[in-house]
């Protein structure tokens, strides 16, 4: 009796292991095929450019879970990304909304036709967000930010939230769609502060 149940347990364990192996092996095979295809497809790019195709931990996890990570993974992403946020040395989170407006309009920077740089990188906010109500050419991939600051009564806590959201949205929403403009170094701290002013300043057309 004891021997038969031992055998049954061992058999069940072996089957489970086999199943796991089949499942896992298939998953890793595709991942290896993807990496091989990428290497071959950008073989002529410079090493500096090829580095853009290498995923960091957050990109890997968000791709794997298709932007819906389980809680433990999501918590790890939130903590890791929050730790990358840097604040202005003078602690002023709001800069010049007029500069912010230009940045919100500009999609310049980072594309292979943008080198050597002919302008500063833009935030390209209008590609996805609505902001100033008189700007009708806005995207709808992300929520409208019409009167965003006004609707939040220009509170300090909200200003900080906007700064952090632009700097690194994964610090609040694991696997957010929006780029990590600050953490990736695409925008500077000053540029982000200008964008915060564009969204949060009472003088900004976004809040008119």
């Amino acid at each position: 009796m004891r021997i038969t149940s031992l055998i049954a347990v061992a058999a069940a364990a072996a089957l489970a292991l086999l199943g796991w192996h089949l499942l896992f092996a298939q998953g890793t095979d595709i991942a290896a095929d993807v990496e091989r295809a990428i290497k071959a497809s950008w073989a002529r790019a410079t090493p500096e450019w090829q580095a853009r195709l290498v995923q960091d931990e957050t990109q890997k996890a968000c791709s794997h879970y298709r932007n819906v990570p389980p809680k433990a993974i999501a918590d790890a992403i939130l903590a890791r990304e929050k730790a990358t946020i840097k604040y202005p040395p003078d602690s002023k989170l709001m800069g010049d909304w007029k500069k912010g407006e230009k940045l919100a309009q500009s999609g310049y920077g980072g594309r292979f036709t943008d080198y050597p740089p002919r302008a500063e990188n833009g935030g390209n906010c209008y590609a996805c967000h609505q902001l100033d109500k008189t700007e009708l050419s806005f995207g709808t991939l992300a929520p409208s930010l019409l009167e965003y600051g006004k609707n939040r009564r220009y509170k300090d806590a909200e200003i900080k939230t906007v700064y952090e959201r632009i700097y690194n949205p994964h610090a609040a929403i694991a696997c957010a769609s929006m780029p990590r403009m600050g953490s990736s170094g695409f925008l500077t701290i000053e540029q982000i502060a200008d964008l915060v002013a564009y969204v949060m300043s009472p003088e900004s057309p976004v809040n008119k």
Partner: protein
Amino acid sequence: MRGALSILAIAAVLVCAATFVAAQDDTERAVERYRQMLKEDPWSNPGLLDADRGETLWKTKRGPKNASLDQCDLGKGPGRVDGAFAELPRYFSDAGRVMDLEARLVWCMEKLQGRDRAEIVERPYSKANQAGSELEALATYVAHKSNGLKFAPRLEHAKEREALAVGEALFFRRQGPMDFSCSTCHAESGRRIRLQGLPFLGKPEEARKVVGEWPAYRISQGTVMTMQHRITDCFWQMRLPLIDYGSDVAIALTMYLVNQAKGGEITAPQIKR
């Protein structure tokens, strides 16, 4: 008086705003009208000039071997062009890999005509208001020869199924300084970048409407654009490096798109904004 003036000013702003929105709608409507006219008179499609030129190029003897592409095997046997595009990408045992139309054209030019690959792929994409490149014209010709057929990817060979799985994984892969994947922009219905509408390519109903339009004649560019060019432009916008012509990533993504569009009609060369 001042009140009347400000009312006038407000009205003017509103009219301007309405005109702008209407102008955008008008563009969409004009493209739709253009398409309707082409349905009634298919021979007025400017993309067909490239298809015609492609046919001539297909039949012209060129390269060190002084051969035409008449014996090029697009999957349905040497020289069979009709319906070949509907089953691409597919596995080719002579090349030992899955190829889409464009990669196969390069292969045939190399093997049959003895031409140098680097020279063939040096300028695969035409600039605005130029005639289509040799590859664009050939691709338009071959795709047009499947016009009216439905996409029927084979997925019989293990390598074809592997290309599909790789394509799907690539569609969701986030990378680069912006963390973008294809799905960042193409995973919901009715979204736009600025005013440009985006197809939800993960949804077969939407994929069926758009994938079969390529190679397409772009009115704003005055030239035809192939699927590889379309994908290259997406990667450019995603801040990724320039992808090699005929590479595995573009082929795998095309396999994913064609499989999403399975059963969708091929209307190439369609008219695009």
